[in-house]
């Protein structure tokens, strides 16, 4: 049986896998940074 030429589908599949994982990692980092800033701001307001 002849092997199908499916390289483009493999690239698309892994682009989705790596892409979504990367976006999620970035979202974790951005949310962490924003919450840190929120904590700092709220503590400053509390101290006043």
């Amino acid at each position, binding site marked *: 049986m002849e*092997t199908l030429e*499916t390289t483009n*589908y493999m690239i698309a*599949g892994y682009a989705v896998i790596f892409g979504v994982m990367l976006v999620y990692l970035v979202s*974790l980092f951005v949310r*962490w940074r924003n*919450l840190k800033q929120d*904590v700092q701001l*709220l503590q400053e307001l509390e101290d006043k």
Partner: protein
Amino acid sequence: MQAKPRFLKILDVVTAILFLVAVGMVFFYAPMEKTMGQVQRVFYFHVATAWVGMLGFLVAAIVGVIYLVRKERRWDIVGLAAIEISLVFFLIAIVSGSIWARPTWGTWWTWDPRLTTATIVELVYAAYMMLRSGIEDPDRRARFGAVYAILGFISVPLTFISIRLLRTIHPVVIGGGSASAEGDFSMTPKMLQTFMFSLLVFSVIFVDLLWHRIRLGRLADKVEQLRLKMVH
């Protein structure tokens, strides 16, 4: 908030190394499948991401029970963290599966029992995220989250057994194949090693991400407490 624990830093490095090794095995160690060609390589991470999805939903159901017994908010934070990670990985599994299906089945999507039940699982937990964000009282939200995570988990084993009980074109990797399955293949020892290693690596990725997401949840909880304190 405490600084990043030393063990978490080590786990981050170990996870990154394991992930790179798994990627190397998928592309350079596992042989190309003779019928489907290169797209079959999607299989290794497609199943591993689905596994992480199911693992997280199971963790959320377990900590849901613990929350209802102990009423400690930290278990709600763990449950939310597990569900968020699982939603992301289950989505990856669904989309990568659809891409694999196109050349193998000749269609991006079909309402096969496995695909249908997997979509239901994703929607059930997406609804969990939306519904809990609409509840302001933290204790009520945590109670709702725990009950929902336990009831929602019913949909997960249904997905797992759907391809074993019903007539489906989705291949069964573990526990024998269906006569109607399309895209089924026999794994060579190298394929099996890559597959098992990918499952292990994604389990480690799940633990690492869960730890990070729990820390984020604790920080969000602290912000919420500070805001409530200022309002009252």
